[in-house]
């Protein structure tokens, strides 16, 4: 206690020292800054959107617990990010593997533009990236919906953000080794969707199937809520992908057009496939399809033409649909299809760059096979493969450790009663 008290002045000094200074705003472009701030807000909204998207899909008794998985990520990861996540991901590079702790607690991160985005305040780039770090672990929560202990979940996202997301973000966006290798990922096909998707697969298997799965019907309790979530996600995704241009203008515009196009074509493809396969096109399918299209175009949004985006969306609709069927065949319970949609979509999109990217769209990018450059595909394969493997291994380790210590799953009786009452002591609806 004495020791702690002696440390208070130092702590205070740290907290109070304004790393932020308002000097030299000369280079800041108001249009670009507005775009990045708006994009940050849009991406933030995706997390409540995801909460509703997932929340509508579970059974009524788990609606709050499921929503909470996304919502609490807003709290936990924001704080992790500001303290250590941002510096691990984007701080000064250490051997291409991780950012140094130089920017711990946002030290030195102020309103001066950074090298990442030279026309906007450094803090704007930081908070924009924070929103990505938040939603990524929340995506995983779909894999073990309706059965995870809340304390285990908190531990999981904290460790996962630190040991999976932050390093991978550094490798690809923070100047790390994969970016030096030339791996392209415009807005997070690898960093967000592949990491989340592969970890989701691991989690679904390690946590185990829901009680009663697959015999007992587990129909979504509120599909309009899921559609609302999908709508907010689509809306927010404009910030996610087009904001990743980190400036307003032509590239942001192309990314936005591609995002919308792929979402549309994946949606249509999905319901056509359903129609052919099951005789009826569903609203749930349309909502799922748009998310598959959005996840798939994410890495490619700033590298391909709108017509290519159209095709990427079609591919997303077909391949993610098939991916979803896999779980039935193989037999794991990826309850809300976090792997089927984000894992498969993220990897598919990453590889689509190797095929369809063109420097005519983005001179900072590369050409794909169809533009005469087969090399990029190899690079993309390496990028996706290494990250998938890394995410898998580290996720398994994290999950196992949690399982041995606090335990991953709620007990049988709690599962029957539902997360809401047993984990949170409250109920979603009193109708």
């Amino acid at each position, binding site marked *: 206690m004495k020791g702690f008290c002696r440390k208070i002045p130092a702590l205070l000094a740290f907290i109070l020292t304004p790393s932020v200074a308002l000097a030299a705003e000369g280079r800041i472009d108001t249009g670009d800054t507005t775009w990045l701030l708006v994009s940050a807000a849009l991406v933030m909204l995706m997390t409540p959107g995801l909460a509703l998207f997932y929340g509508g899909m579970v059974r009524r008794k788990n609606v709050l617990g499921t929503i909470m998985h996304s919502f609490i990520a807003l709290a936990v990861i924001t704080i992790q990010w500001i303290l250590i996540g941002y510096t691990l991901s984007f701080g000064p590079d250490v051997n291409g593997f991780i950012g140094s702790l130089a920017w711990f607690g946002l030290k030195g991160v102020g309103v001066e533009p950074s090298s990442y985005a030279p026309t906007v305040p450094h803090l704007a780039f930081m908070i924009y990236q924070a929103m990505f770090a938040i939603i990524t672990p929340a995506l995983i929560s779909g894999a073990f919906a309706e059965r995870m202990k809340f304390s285990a979940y908190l531990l999981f996202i904290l460790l996962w953000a630190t040991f999976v997301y932050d390093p991978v973000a550094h490798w690809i966006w923070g100047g790390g080794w994969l970016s030096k290798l030339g791996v392209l990922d415009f807005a997070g096909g690898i960093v967000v969707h592949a990491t989340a998707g592969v970890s989701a697969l691991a989690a679904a298997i390690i946590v185990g199937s829901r009680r009663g799965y697959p015999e007992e019907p587990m*129909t979504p309790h509120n599909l309009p809520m899921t559609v609302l979530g999908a709508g907010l996600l689509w809306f927010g995704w404009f910030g996610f992908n087009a904001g990743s241009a980190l400036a307003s203008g032509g590239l942001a515009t192309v990314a936005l057009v591609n995002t919308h196009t792929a979402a549309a074509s994946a949606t249509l493809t999905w319901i056509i496939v359903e129609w052919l396969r099951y005789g009826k096109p569903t609203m749930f399918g349309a909502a799922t399809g748009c998310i598959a299209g959005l996840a798939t175009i994410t890495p490619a949004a700033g590298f391909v033409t709108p017509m290519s985006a159209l095709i990427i969306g079609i591919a997303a609709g077909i391949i993610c649909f098939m991916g979803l069927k896999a779980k039935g065949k193989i037999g794991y319970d990826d309850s809300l299809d976090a792997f089927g949609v984000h894992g498969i979509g993220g990897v598919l999109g990453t590889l689509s760059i190797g095929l369809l990217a063109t420097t005519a769209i983005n001179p900072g990018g590369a050409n794909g096979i169809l533009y005469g450059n087969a090399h990029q595909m190899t690079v993309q394969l390496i990028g996706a493969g290494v990250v998938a493997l890394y995410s898998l291994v580290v996720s398994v380790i994290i999950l196992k450790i949690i399982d041995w210590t606090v335990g991953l799953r709620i007990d049988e009786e709690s599962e029957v009663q539902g997360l809401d009452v047993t984990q949170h002591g409250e109920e979603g609806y009193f109708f």
Partner: protein
Amino acid sequence: MKMVSAVIKHYRLDEVRKALLDAGVQGMTIVDVKGFGRQKGQLEVYRGVEYEVTFLPKVKIEVAVPDERVEDVIDAIISGARTGEIGDGKIFVYDLQDVVRIRTGKRGKEAI
């Protein structure tokens, strides 16, 4: 006294209510239920997973009546609910030992 209870299709409720009023019924209670019988449910596919939805939404009516009115009430329900298609529903008649009007404490027939 008898309690006449009927499981019918939702969209016939209004007709049944009118027929019952015409038959002199002064009160009734309804509740949303689900059921199956001859009429089977349908297959629903959620993200490629097929669920057989066995239960169809129906509405259950309960009307307490003096013994002598039972047949009229049954006729009224049939006239309002029948479409001739499968799933039109069923009427169940129970014996009522007593009825109490809470407001007045009156019992028996006059409490209905």
